[in-house]
């Protein structure tokens, strides 16, 4: 069972490694922070890290980091 805190910690690491983002994860709308390639890179890394597949219908739900955490929680925990 993966917890939201574990996912947030892993996301911070992914953001640092793949997006060169230092510091706390942002609260705002991801579309204002990431271009399409960066968003794609983030999703590739997240799927690989948690061994999940985020389908197009769930991808549409992701507007903020919290949304991403929720989608990964559902996908990882079945």
């Amino acid at each position: 069972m993966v917890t939201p805190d574990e996912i947030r910690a892993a996301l911070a690491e992914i953001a640092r490694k793949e997006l060169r983002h230092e510091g706390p994860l942002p609260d705002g709308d991801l579309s204002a922070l990431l271009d399409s390639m960066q968003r794609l890179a983030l999703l590739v890394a997240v799927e690989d890290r948690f061994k999940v597949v985020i389908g197009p219908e769930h991808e549409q739900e992701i507007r903020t980091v919290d949304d991403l955490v929720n989608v990964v929680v559902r996908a990882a925990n079945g």
Partner: protein
Amino acid sequence: MRIAGVGTALPPHAYDQAELIAAFKRVWGRRHHNTERVEALHRAVMVERRHLVLPMEDYATLQGMKATTDAFIEAGTLLAEKALRAALDAAGMAPREVDAIYLTTVTGVCSPSIDARLVNRMGMRADVKRIPIFGLGCVAGAAGVSRLFDYMRGWPEHAAALICLELCSLTLQKDDLSVANLVSSGLFGDGAAAVVGRGVRGGGPRVVATRSVFYPDTERVMGWEVQDSGFQVLLAPTIPDLVRANVPANVDDFLRDHGVKRSDIDLWVCHPGGPKILEAFQEALGLTRDDLAVTWDCLRAHGNLSSASVLFVLHETLRRKSPSPGARGLMMAMGPGFCAELVLLEW
């Protein structure tokens, strides 16, 4: 210095991006459980076709530095020779007329370097000066032209050649599932290009001036992490930000020193780094997609060929545009360091 001739060479094995994506999905399907995402990344780089130095099926068993280096030397020598011969033909020159050769690559290491093998194969003179350059990566096409320009200032009666040889496919790390490697595997292709420069003789565009720009403390933006298995790519997603933050001032400062404005540039000879980098160039410099049309076309047709790419763009620009006398061009590339190189051209 005048650019008396430009030549390009592509290896014989050409594949549509769709064929390559299908092959990558087979390889990475066993490791990365969402290969649709790999496909999305490979489509996002806007490459339609790439040439590979080996038939696609040979890469499945190609492993380790010895095998890749052997392939680099064997196929790379032939490809470099083809590019140099094409440039010499364009300049109307024979190999024995070349006084100095620069060879840039970042995709293979050998000693003697490939340029030594070219001297033997092409029957160049025994007093030819050889300057192999490793490690500049994508900037080396433009930086190589700059170094040629430096050489010709000292030896204006001479002729010097630059060869950019890049076999990016040989560096593929099949076990690396980092985003940088997934992107690179969809973006980079194989090819070679050459330029022949002459001092006092010959036609072709004149190199007016060059400018190197180094960005301090950006070593982790792009490069290789050398592993036992070969070259593992380092490619930060922050390159477009670096372009936006620096390139306009770099270009304007350089041009101003030579009495030229950005609006005076008729032809933009830009290295096709990737879609996001090209969009950043356009946005930062106030250019249209049409201004970089040749660059976009080269990206689509061949992928990013590292140092050779900007010379492919130059070659295609010369072929398509027939610039009128007095037209100005700006050649631009960026690469590991992180750094940029600017070359002001005049027809």
